[in-house]
């Protein structure tokens, strides 16, 4: 009896070991019959299976029998389940299909260059902006090495594709920035107010941009602020011209942070040593403070606040043009406050909300005086304030397509006071926009949208259609087309006195080819832009000016060919003419150069952890106005070509526990003569070249960052 049970027991045991073995073999290929290697082939819920070899073949044995499922899985391909009946040797030839969600998807790219730390395959990284030689960590200076931009270093702003600086608008988290630049002195423009370190993403669009953004005829600079810091830190910066300090505190639960920063700059001692072209009337001083607060409101929600306050005082005394031996004083005090509060959250059901409010105020108090002449100094007091709100809803449709729509409202106060004479106005501006990114296939996308705007000052509505198409040729290459209408209010100094002005208008047509591989980028873009309703000031102030711009641009970046060397080359050809302001007819304007060329190189020497950035920029001469010439030769003369070499060297080291960077930055290393144009006296007898006030600026600074290590605390809170 025992024996019987024992036999039963043993046979039961052995039956689990000795089962029939079935051989399964075959081959796995893709749709184009290329063998697929590394495919995981398995019988569902068993260990049995194999991995396909380089020729796509596989073979294994299994003791499973009857109805079974065999699963084939490989990264970037759709997993396939095959029902089989295992009764004898089986041969399977399987074709796996590409998993579309894993393929690279085409994105709208015409006209824009993006720097992002989060997305792959962007043309630039945020760090590129900081390490561009000679850019002095100024976003706009760094962008001037990209195609489509002009080397107009005598004027404020970014001049893009035959457009003026006013035609480029800056947006932070979707909200317009009214005064993105420091107020400058005549021919000495202020640099950008915002540090590149504030942003995780920068998109520079030289045309054809989304209906989300308006009021820029030529270009949009879209900045996206940083999210939570990785850890808490203190920072300290020292240079011969000033110092700065800040702290960034990450909350214990890692869901929030706050930061404050303050800086002081005084160029006085520096100017005493280097002797600028024009004598400063005061020691140029800048005092700045900023604060930020960020809070994760849920797993997917984020609330961000950024506030900035800045005070500057500067001035210059230059030889008078009108009065021999006299001097002209220009002195300015500027106060600027900028605040931005934004919120983003996923609402479920594939809906997303982005909302924001912003308030900014900017005051310029300017004193103009001709010395030793005795009229009272001229006092100018300009105040501009902007309050705005914006809401955008996004609905994702299917895997890739999305529908966006939203609205914004801006209330602007533009006050100007000129020796007690006031010319103030306010404007209520509202806009609504809608656009859809429609993927016909993952390789082919169309963006169709429009924007509707109404300004109470102009008293008219405009409707701007925008269309882009992009088609992916292969893994790395794509072609894009873009078309759009862009409207912008005339500058406040004209709108103030002539309320019947219309919107200025530009129509863009862009065609582009882009190839972004891991180590190199090639981008070729051609554009045509037609201007309507530009502001004319002669014979009357009216919006009846015209113009066009067309050109072709090249961008090449290579990170691989030379070890540790990263370089990019941009070239822009621009053919533009316009009839605006006092121009008698359409001519090449005085801010536009026909050929612009830049080479940016970055070389990293790892043994001494030093990064060397060298940038060379070239532009052909710009036209200038000579009042001695007849009208038929208006703007026919050109300045000399522009050359500039910028250098920055940054050395990374640790001083005790502080991560430290030493930065040496020099612009115009070669001390080339740079002439931007000429000023003529009223009688046209005297002229003076517009040249940089400081032909070669040298900056040396040290930045220290002390990380506060909270790892232990984090663990204790687990």
């Amino acid at each position: 009896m025992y024996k019987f049970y024992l036999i039963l027991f043993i046979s039961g045991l052995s039956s689990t070991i000795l089962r029939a073995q079935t051989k399964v073999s075959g081959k796995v290929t893709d749709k184009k019959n290329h063998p697929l290697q590394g495919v995981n082939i398995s019988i569902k819920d068993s260990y049995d299976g194999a991995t396909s070899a380089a020729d796509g073949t596989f073979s294994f044995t299994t003791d499973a029998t009857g109805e079974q499922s065999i699963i084939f899985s490989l990264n970037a391909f759709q997993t396939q389940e095959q029902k089989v009946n295992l009764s004898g040797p089986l041969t399977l030839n399987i074709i796996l299909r590409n998993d579309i969600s894993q393929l690279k998807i085409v994105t709208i790219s015409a006209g824009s260059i993006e720097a992002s730390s989060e997305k792959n395959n962007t043309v630039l990284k945020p760090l590129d902006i900081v390490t561009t030689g000679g850019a002095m960590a100024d976003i706009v200076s760094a962008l001037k090495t990209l195609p489509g931009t002009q080397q107009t270093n005598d004027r404020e702003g970014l001049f893009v594709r035959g457009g003026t600086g006013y035609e480029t608008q800056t947006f932070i988290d979707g909200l317009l920035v009214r005064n993105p630049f420091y107020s400058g002195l005549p021919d000495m423009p202020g640099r950008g107010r915002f540090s590149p370190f504030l942003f995780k993403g920068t998109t520079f669009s030289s045309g054809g941009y989304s209906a989300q953004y308006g009021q820029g005829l030529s270009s949009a600079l879209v900045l996206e602020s940083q999210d939570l810091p990785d850890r808490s830190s203190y920072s300290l910066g020292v240079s011969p011209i000033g110092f700065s300090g800040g702290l960034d505190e990450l909350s214990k639960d890692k869901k929030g942070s706050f930061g404050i920063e303050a800086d002081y700059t005084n160029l006085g001692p520096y100017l005493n040593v280097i002797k600028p072209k024009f004598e400063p009337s005061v020691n140029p001083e800048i005092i700045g403070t900023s604060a930020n607060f960020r809070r994760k409101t849920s797993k997917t929600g984020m609330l961000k606040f950024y506030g900035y306050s800045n005070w500057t005082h500067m001035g210059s005394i230059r030889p008078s043009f009108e009065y021999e031996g006299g001097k002209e004083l220009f002195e300015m005090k500027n106060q600027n406050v900028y605040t931005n509060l934004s919120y983003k959250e996923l609402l479920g059901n594939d809906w997303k909300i982005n909302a924001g409010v912003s308030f900014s105020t900017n005051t310029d108090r300017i004193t103009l005086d001709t010395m030793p002449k005795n009229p009272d100094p001229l006092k100018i007091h300009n105040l501009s304030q902007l309050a705005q709100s914006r809401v955008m809803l996004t609905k994702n449709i299917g895997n890739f397509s999305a529908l966006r729509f939203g609205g914004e409202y801006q209330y602007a106060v533009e006050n100007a006071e000129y020796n007690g004479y006031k010319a103030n106005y306010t404007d209520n501006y509202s806009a609504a926009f809608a656009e859809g990114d429609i993927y016909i296939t993952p390789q082919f996308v169309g963006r169709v949208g429009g924007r509707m705007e109404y300004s109470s000052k102009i008293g008219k509505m405009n409707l701007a259609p925008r269309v882009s198409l992009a088609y992916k040729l292969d893994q790395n290459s794509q072609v894009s087309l873009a078309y759009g209408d862009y409207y912008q209010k005339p500058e406040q100094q004209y709108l103030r006195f002539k309320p019947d002005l219309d919107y200025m208008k530009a129509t863009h047509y862009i065609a582009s080819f882009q190839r972004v591989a891991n180590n190199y980028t090639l981008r070729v873009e051609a554009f045509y832009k037609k201007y309507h309703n530009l502001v004319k000031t002669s014979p009357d102030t009216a919006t009846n000016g015209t113009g066009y711009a067309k050109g072709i641009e090249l961008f090449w970046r290579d990170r691989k060919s030379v070890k540790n060397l990263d370089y990019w080359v941009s070239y822009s050809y621009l053919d533009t003419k316009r009839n605006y302001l006092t121009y008698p007819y359409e001519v090449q304007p005085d801010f536009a150069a026909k050929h612009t060329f830049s080479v940016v190189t970055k070389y990293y020497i790892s043994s001494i952890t030093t990064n060397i950035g060298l940038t060379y920029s070239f532009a052909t001469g710009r036209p200038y106005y000579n009042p001695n010439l007849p009208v038929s030769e208006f703007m026919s003369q050109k300045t000399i070509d522009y050359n500039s070499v910028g250098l920055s060297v940054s050395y990374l080291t640790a001083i005790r526990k502080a991560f430290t960077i030493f930065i040496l930055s020099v612009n115009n290393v070669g001390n080339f003569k740079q002439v931007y144009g000429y000023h003529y006296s009223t009688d046209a007898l005297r002229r003076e070249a517009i040249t940089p006030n400081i032909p070669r600026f040298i900056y040396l600074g040290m930045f220290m960052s002390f990380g506060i290590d909270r790892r232990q605390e984090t663990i204790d809170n687990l």
Partner: protein
Amino acid sequence: MMKTFVLSFCLLVTTFSMTFAQSAQYQGAMAKQIALLDDPANHGPEKMQEIANTFERIAAAEKTQWLPYYYAAYCYVMNALMEKDKSKVDAIDDKAQNAILQADGLSPKNDEIYCIRSLIATARIGVDPQTRGMQFGSEAATWLAQAAQINKDNPRVDLLQGQSLYYTPEQFGGSKEKAKEKFEIALKKFAAFKPASEIAPHWGEEYTRQLLAK
């Protein structure tokens, strides 16, 4: 009476032997793959993919065992660390991440799993050290610190901390000296370390010796 007893005993033994057989199959399959992993000859990307696939099959069939997912993640992260083409690293690392999250779901607060998570973050640094160093460097260190908190005797924590010190430039807090100290501590812990079972994680001792010899 006796019959009933024998019968029930045999039934008990049979059920036990069946679960035992299943468990033996698991142990055996795991041990075979781990032996392959322990052999440096198999450390090429194709072979590692094949071993990872096998672990994934075991994981999918077993459903409740964390070790097959753990080892699959280990294979993938090794491939990610060895991959020369930086554009491919993230996709491979994503596979490691998927597998380790499965393991983490089955065995929360596990120091061995945290070691792999640290390696996954480390592999991401390599794609673009200048941009990613800060974020993923601190993530990698945080996982190791958490692993040490759970099990201070885990030699792999010291090995990986040492490895990080060894390869980080001094300017960013690295130190070959401190790395050596860590490796020596790791070796002492390896000597005392008893894996929970034949198939529990036990890798790293030989690698520590190699690093120390550098």
